[in-house]
């Protein structure tokens, strides 16, 4: 692959990249400001981080958010992978198409619709709003993306692979555990990570179904930001940025390790949502 981009092209993308990153840099930069506003940087200080770490409420919310993200990702990865197997094994073409269109509904629906409809749903079920309603909602909207990340791996797996396992005497359970799951593992990992980011990133759905007692970081940031600037949020942004970087790093590490053995790429292909 040669570098064929023109000079103007390079200048153009430099500007766009600057615009993409300025708000993020700006946000994190002010987390180190002595002042209390996001204007006029007033010298380096870690005091906002100090405030953040002493904020018991924020710490609890942070742990809630992580707990919801991990639990929902594990559940959605399991159900989503099962769904991918179900879609993959669909006998008729229109059965597969129907399942896939139903699957994509939650992916393309506006967040408010998902939030509002889940709110109606939980109320109709008389399920109290709080941890469980948030957890169930997160599982629900993470499942379709997991399925979409696992299914291509399944589809590209040659049918003779499973036939070969059966032919050599493996039971269906052995075929699943020894052949299919190892083969689609990169897709499952990608699905798991994507589910975590969907969970951490979600605001609107959680906002609708969270009730009074339970909050996640997104909702907390929203309610604080509506009250105005507080550099504690900037400090939180700094922490979350590092957290995202670690997550991305771990993800790409796993991804490249898999690419090295199977020569497949996937995240960029489906990173859009």
């Amino acid at each position, binding site marked *: 692959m040669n570098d064929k981009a023109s000079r103007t092209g390079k200048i153009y993308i430099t500007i766009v990249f600057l615009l993409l990153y300025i708000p993020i840099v700006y946000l994190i930069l002010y987390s180190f400001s002595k002042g209390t506003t996001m204007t006029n940087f007033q010298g380096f200080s870690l005091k906002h981080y100090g405030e953040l770490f002493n904020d018991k409420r924020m710490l609890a919310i942070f742990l809630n958010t992580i707990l919801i993200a991990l639990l929902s990702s594990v559940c959605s990865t399991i159900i989503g992978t099962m769904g991918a197997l179900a879609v993959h094994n669909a006998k*008729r073409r229109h059965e597969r198409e129907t399942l896939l269109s139903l699957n994509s509904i939650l992916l393309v629906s506006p967040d408010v619709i998902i939030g509002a409809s889940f709110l109606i749903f939980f109320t109709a079920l008389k399920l109290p709003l709080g941890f469980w309603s948030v957890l169930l909602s997160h599982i629900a909207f993470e499942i379709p993306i997991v399925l979409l990340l696992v299914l291509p791996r399944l589809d590209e797996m*040659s049918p*003779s*692979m499973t*036939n*070969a*396992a*059966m*032919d*050599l*005497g*493996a*039971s*269906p359970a*052995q*075929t699943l555990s*020894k*052949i299919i799951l*190892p*083969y689609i593992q990169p897709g499952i990992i990608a699905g798991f990570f994507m589910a975590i980011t969907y969970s951490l990133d979600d605001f609107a759905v959680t906002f609708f179904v969270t009730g009074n007692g339970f909050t996640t970081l997104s909702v907390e940031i929203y309610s604080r930001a509506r009250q105005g600037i507080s550099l504690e949020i900037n400090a939180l942004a700094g922490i979350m940025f590092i957290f995202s970087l670690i997550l991305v790093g771990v993800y790409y590490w796993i991804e490249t390790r898999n690419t090295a*053995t*199977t*020569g497949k790429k996937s995240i960029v292909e489906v990173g859009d949502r």
Partner: protein
Amino acid sequence: MSKTIVELKNVYKKYDDGFTALKNISFKLQEGEFYTLLGPSGCGKTTILQSIAGFTEVTSGQVLFDGKKINDIPANKRQLNTVFQDYALFPNMNVFDNVAFGLVVHNAKKDEIKTRVHDALKMVQLEQYANREISELSGGQQQRIAIARAIVNRPKVLLLDEPLSALDAKLRKDMQYELRELQQNLGITFLFVTHDQEEALAMSDEIFVMNKGEILQNGSPVDIYDEPINHFVADFIGESNIIPGKMVADYQVAFLGHQFECADAGMRPNEPVEVVIRPEDLVITTPEQGKLQVKVDTQLFRGDYYEILAYDKAGNEWLIHSTNASTDDAIVGLTFGPNDMHIMRYNETEAKFNHRLESYED
């Protein structure tokens, strides 16, 4: 007389969309023989293989293994193994684990697994490759591993689904010898599927020629080559000149306005027939000496012979294999003997064809 190991009785396979992949297939495979299912893609040959292996269910009819009906027995409980067209080697395991897989799922002991994997790898001359990853192997080596993996369970029948199609021409020829040798060493039945007639002719004890879900003809490679049952088989196996003619009487055939002595009999007087003459049986001579006169159109040098394309006055195309070059646009004569011609009737069934042949051949 050896024993029947696999038998298909009146097998049909119909898909939901109404497509019939197999139409009334019946045949028997004996122990220790090399069989080939030969036909163009989509003719149903792989479907037969899959219904024997258990990857697909037949719509009606019986599949018998060792005299027992196995229609409802799942693939993992059938005592035969398959070599797949794309090899289907498990990418998450190395060579040893791939070959050992069939033993591992049968809970074999560790020592036994070791010896048997070693033996299987030795059979395919790759015993030193046990610790390699699949991605490190060449296509030819992957092919051998796929065979080793399939024979490690000591099946009575090995099914091979176009296993050589992904290899280059030279390697494919070598593998033909090796497969034949392997089959003889193992002494088990091979059922080989291919669309390559050369492969089929080179390796098989018996060939089943298929088209559109039906077996058109079965027999030894020589029988099928020399006495194809119909236009399709004659055209599919080897190259041939097929000319419409008329059977004047037994051993007398007429085409292109001449009457010739031939070696076939048992047909109605003046029955319309097709005459097959293989390109290598045509001899080029002077126009006066020739039984037919043709005009040379083009010729290609094929290395061991010249392939000459010529046309007769009626516009029929003639393909001639000759060790000597000819001249473009020259009028030449063609000669051939009575035994160089093979006469085919229209729409003759295999049973009637065999019966007719027996009636006049000794």
